[in-house]
């Protein structure tokens, strides 16, 4: 099978994004990064106007459905994916923009208690993880976002998050 067909099939069948390096290792005679990148750009071109798109995010390369496909999937899935509550989204935003943070830090910013369930739900989705502990009494866990979080939002890095708005100037 030709290398481009192998890469295409592996990317379509992989549960996670794959790096150029990992893709190179697919072949008995390891393939150079440049050769893989050539294949990737050919594939990107090939799939350009279709329902799937080859795109790069933090974890590497993978296919994803294109925006035009959404209505079809909405018809296919009886239930729409639930949206997160405002409390959950604010918690996630604080972790994403202010990481690493403790639960106490989040509560301080939001001005209210943060339920353990919210943190657990994001941990189970592998969007956040404990990256350490702050050396204060109780050694609270420090949370940060994961590569999976970036992948699921199709971002290459944290700096691709929407920029924080400068509200002070908006208000005055």
């Amino acid at each position: 099978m030709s290398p481009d067909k192998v890469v295409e099939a592996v990317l379509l069948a992989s549960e996670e994004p794959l790096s150029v390096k990992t893709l190179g290792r697919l072949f008995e005679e390891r393939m150079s990064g440049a050769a893989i990148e050539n294949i990737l750009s050919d594939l990107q071109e090939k799939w350009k106007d279709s329902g799937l798109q080859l795109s790069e995010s933090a974890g590497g390369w993978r296919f994803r459905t294109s925006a035009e496909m959404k209505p079809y999937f909405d018809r296919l899935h009886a239930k729409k994916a639930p949206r997160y509550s405002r409390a959950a989204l604010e918690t996630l935003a604080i972790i994403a923009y202010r990481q690493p943070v403790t639960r106490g830090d989040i509560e301080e910013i939001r001005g209210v208690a943060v339920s353990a369930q919210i943190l657990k739900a994001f941990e189970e989705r592998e969007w956040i993880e404990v990256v350490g502990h702050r050396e204060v009494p109780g050694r609270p866990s420090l949370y940060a976002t994961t590569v999976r979080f970036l992948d699921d939002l199709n971002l290459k890095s944290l700096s691709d998050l929407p920029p924080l708005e400068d509200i002070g100037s908006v208000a005055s």
Partner: protein
Amino acid sequence: MITAKIHGEAMLELPQDLYIPPDALEVVLDAFEGPLDLLLYLIRKHNLDILDISMSDLTRQYMAYIEAAKARHELAAEYLLMAALLIEIKSRMLLPKPAEMDGEVDPRMELVRRLLEYEKMKLAAAAIDALDQAGRDFFLPAIEQDRDDIPERQEVDVDELRRAWLDVVARAGVQHPHKVKREELSVREHMSRILKGLRNRDFAEFFELFDIHAGIAVMVVTFLALLELVRESLVTIVQVDPFGAIYVRAANES
């Protein structure tokens, strides 16, 4: 900007006298994510300048709101804590400032900092929610891989093997351990090869076991392997007639 909704309608005006239909209070309260959120709402609704908040206006509106809410609702402690903070800031601002304390920090500053940080995060939350999300706005290919018969492949490298062997020998407390050299390993390799060759047959002719094209060293090693196999009683060598053909057979075939 917050849009608190009462009975599905955006509550655009918070009346100055703060009359809120009693049955709407819970709904209103649920629309806020805490005292900071409520304060931001009041500030933005009344076009107060967040960098120069009129503490008496803000405090009055906040107090009126939570007084009204408290009548129906067990108010979360955070709301009361914030009320106390607002009153404290207001009273500090009312105190006449002695001349030498001109440099004192504006007591509102910490509150403003928190409000700005909270509002930033609130907008960021909405911005994150607006991003395309896997499983909601786009989907990932989900093709079943033929994998059930792919065994779990553990890794091993040759150095690990070497260390494992050294550990075993060390543990066995062998006083004069056998030194395994390259030559000996080739003998062992040929021992295995000869046994493999004899697996499915009664015997092999002696000369068949030697590959005359492999060079003299390999032939010697093959011969040594054969001798070792005999010594370990793993093969027998038979010669029926003097100077006749020599046959090698696996010991178990006898």
